[in-house]
């Protein structure tokens, strides 16, 4: 699977891409694969503050519910509303069209401290 080089990753299997002060957050290919068929996505409303390391929503597969943790702190400025009707997109394109939220961050500090693509791939490799 192609894990974009420009993204950063977490051990909880989220990814982040940074464009100026806007961080886009999603779950990784590995995460969706572990979850299986995703049937629900619960996301915060625009304007909510999320805090690094805290749960901001959940994804639910046929088998289980799983929390999603914020990899960065900031205010939610956009939510991928399409996912509420088409949660299966998270299985199909987790690194692209099925991003979850966009967060306005206060500088790139949080982002830079996350795992690089090679570290993340090493991590999921070692995990399985």
């Amino acid at each position, binding site marked *: 699977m192609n894990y974009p080089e420009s993204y950063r990753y977490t051990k909880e299997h989220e990814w982040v891409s940074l464009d100026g002060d806007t961080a886009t957050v999603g779950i990784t290919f590995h995460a969706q694969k*572990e979850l*299986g*068929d995703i*049937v*629900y996505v619960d996301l915060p409303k625009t304007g909510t503050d999320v805090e690094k390391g805290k749960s901001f929503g*959940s994804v*639910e*597969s*046929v*088998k289980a*519910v799983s929390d999603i943790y914020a990899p960065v702190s900031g205010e939610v400025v956009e939510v991928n509303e399409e996912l509420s009707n088409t949660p299966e997109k998270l299985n199909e394109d987790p690194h692209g069209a099925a991003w979850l939220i966009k967060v306005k961050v206060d500088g790139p500090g949080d982002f830079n401290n996350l795992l690089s693509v090679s570290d993340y791939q090493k991590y999921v490799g070692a995990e399985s």
Partner: protein
Amino acid sequence: MTTELKRTPLYEVHRAAGAKMVDFGGWDMPVQYSGLIDEHNTVRKGVGLFDVSHMGEIQIRGPEAMKLVDFATTNAVAKLKTGQAQYSGLLYAHGGFVDDILVHKVADDSFFLCVNASNQDKDFEHILSLNRFDCEVEFASNKYAQLAIQGPKALGVAQTLTETDLSAIRYYWFRDGVFAGVPARMARTGYTGEDGFEVYVAPENAATVWNAIMDAGKSEGIKPCGLGARNTLRLESKMALYGHEIGPTISPLEADLAWIVKLDKGDFNGRDALVKQKEKGLTRRLVGFEMRGRGIGRDGYEVNLEGVPAGWVTSGSPAPTLGRNIGLCYLPLDRARPGEKIEIVIRNQAVEAETVPTPFYKRPETPRSVDKRSETPRSF
């Protein structure tokens, strides 16, 4: 984890096929291959293959074998004919479940029990404790692997692998013969709500038989299926799962399984307790529900009536065949009937649901097997 997970003889086959493995009651079992929903739909529309070798087997033999099995179980063993199987309950004296099992009558003096993997040791001990009939009770789980071939196309695929006329085996009957070149017990049973067979073979033959079924089913699009799909399939068909709908503190009457309890058959372990429970009246019973609000009521979630905790969800899941979120729950008897508004507490939020009739899914009537006599050209 300090204890080693147990493996079925097909463990290597699952790994090689890229199955996702999970710890299922101490067994390293495939939870899914191609994907839970895909596997589920394959079994509903075509044919799927499950490894259920973790299930336990207990053999009971002796001149009074029938008496022991009849005393240990809730269903009417005396009514079984040789070659017939029945779903039944193994109860404690207080009326709660030790396990739910399948009883196969192999001969007048020989019975074959298929029991749940995680209960097999205690089932064996339990039956031994009731054995005042001088029977031979054999723990036989290590002698059998079990493969379940399930779905509307299971019969056609399985038939290519045996000389035994499988269409002549009726639902909940079985025959011994040769399957895929090895000795096998072929039972028309299953845990999916579809037609199909559960095939018992020696563990050393399991991989051969698995591969033969996969090859034979290729043209019908057969897929290997995991325990994830097995669970959604059984739930849609409202088949009980030990540890969820049933357990030591739950009686078959409460679990809506009165049909496997034959109080008029004579004494059996747990009968007195059930008679008393019936006289006093039940306080709770299992009932099906469908989510009306957004969310999935999952196993263990609380059920509220008018805002007050009143029961719990035993199993809950999206139902792939129905496209709705379904579940089973225990409720006070007077509300354990279809049409009641209930709330399921999903992560601290009460979400609307409604009790509904069960089973949620029932397979379309299978066409009656063609009367072969009318097809055979007469010579006169």
